[in-house]
């Protein structure tokens, strides 16, 4: 199922809408967000959290991570 989520990367200035199939992994979701930001070339490990601040398993699918339509996720480098 396709979801729309609101992603906030820690080195970006803007929350961005991400539309994605929910069978993708959390790691792929993070990559998709930072690719649209202003510093995609920085690379490095990405930590993904939900709105409550819980760290999401990068190998889990978006559906498994509990993210649903309209949810916030935050991506931090390192």
């Amino acid at each position, binding site marked *: 199922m396709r979801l729309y989520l*609101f992603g906030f990367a*820690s*080195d*970006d*200035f*803007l929350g961005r809408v991400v539309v994605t199939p929910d069978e993708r992994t959390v790691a792929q979701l993070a990559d998709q967000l930072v690719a*649209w930001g202003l*510093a995609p070339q920085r690379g490095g490990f990405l930590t993904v959290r939900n*709105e409550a601040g819980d760290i999401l398993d990068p190998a889990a699918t978006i559906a498994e991570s509990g993210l649903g339509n309209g949810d*916030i996720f935050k991506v931090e480098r390192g």
Partner: protein
Amino acid sequence: MVLRRDEWLDLARKVDWTPRYVDERELFPEEISGRPWLPREAWRDWNEAYRTTYREYVANQREKDAAVLGVRAALSKPRLFDDLDPGWVQLVKFHNGAVALAEYAGAVAELRMARFGRDSAWRTMATLGALDEIRHTQIPLLIGHDLLAYDGNFDWTHKAFHTNEWVILAARHLFDDMFLAADTIDLAIQLNFVFETGFTSLQFMAMAAMADRAHHHLFEKTVASIQTDEARHSQIGRPVMRALIENGSRDRAQYLIDKMWWRCWRLFLALSGTAMEYLAPVSARTRSFKEFMTEWVTEQFVKNLAEFDLEKPWFWDLFVEELDYAHHSLQLGLYTYRTTLWFDVAMPDRAERDWLNEKYPQWNETYGALWEELERRWEAGGEAGTLSYGLPALCNLCQLPALFIRPGRNTACTLEMGGRRYLFCSEPCRWIFQQETSRFAEHKSVVDRIVAGDAPGKLIDLHQWMGLQAPVETGKDLRRGLDPWRLDPVPKR
């Protein structure tokens, strides 16, 4: 014998008659005259500090109009753009589009008070206020029309409020809430007490000071003239506030202040903050936006609150923190989404960056690298690399992009209600929404409309939907990529 002014003025101001065919509640229904519905006696002491008569009003306004029109005539149309900085021209276009018809909404609000305000002196003041606001609509329309010959986008002075352009939707969302969908008590607190005494001095007095230094004397004269009207009719707020406080409605008054302070702050940082620090030439800047806000808005408003023993809004610390960065983040949003605007947007040049860093010591560390990245992208791949193509996350209350963050700081939050998840840029926006869910819940942001299929998802179609005829009307880089450190002097448009 002819009475002297002071002998008849109080009688003329206070012509509250006793209704014989309807009772007072029917004459002034609570739904539009406002809550709490207080007995007539509670309003008997409603007094404005500065009293004026219709005769005096007309004479004063005639002089003020003559002063504005005199500058316009002296400059004559062919010289309207002479010596104006190209960024300043965009600032005026931005200001005109966002403000001219908002003033007309202000006229509707004043007229509502002119009929349904509970005291005749209030109604008289509001009648003059309505005339003021019509004037504040007409003058920018006139000047915008003059400028059409030089830049067709000045038609947005009139057109903007009739479009779905996203900045205008955000402005209209606020003005509908504050002006058009409010009873007279809420109007007096929101429009007169908070918006006009708190914020419009920033838009008009600060802009007038900058216009003088930018050599735009017609704009200076216009906004300064408008501000003198605002200062007069804004005094409606104080006696209404006094009646509320004295009649057990302190909590309601505090809520209206908190709500409208935050909502006005959001819009002003978007309009004034970005324009003052990214479109006004450095030579025209007398103070930073933060300094203006601190000295002209915050300090004065805190005194007003103290007069009524009211508290600062509960989110004050966040507001103060945001003074250092919120409009800088928004500017990056405006720049990277500039094709969705009706005015051009600037990338700060070296002198501007130095100025910004002097005024905001964290600016370079926080934002400098982001602007440098945009520069590198322009060098490497042309303008296309400097644009955002994905959708920004929009707040379901203020309707602005959820970008009141800086790297490492994010205040966005959500709310699940009625099977729908709402996004907010910040806790205060969510709090306001929660206080009046029935008022706000059914509204859809531009992103909600795109997701629901109510607005087109393709950018070219979205431009059309927003009223922007691409590529002629859509916003561009102010210098078309020919930045001044590479090409000196800057070519004028």
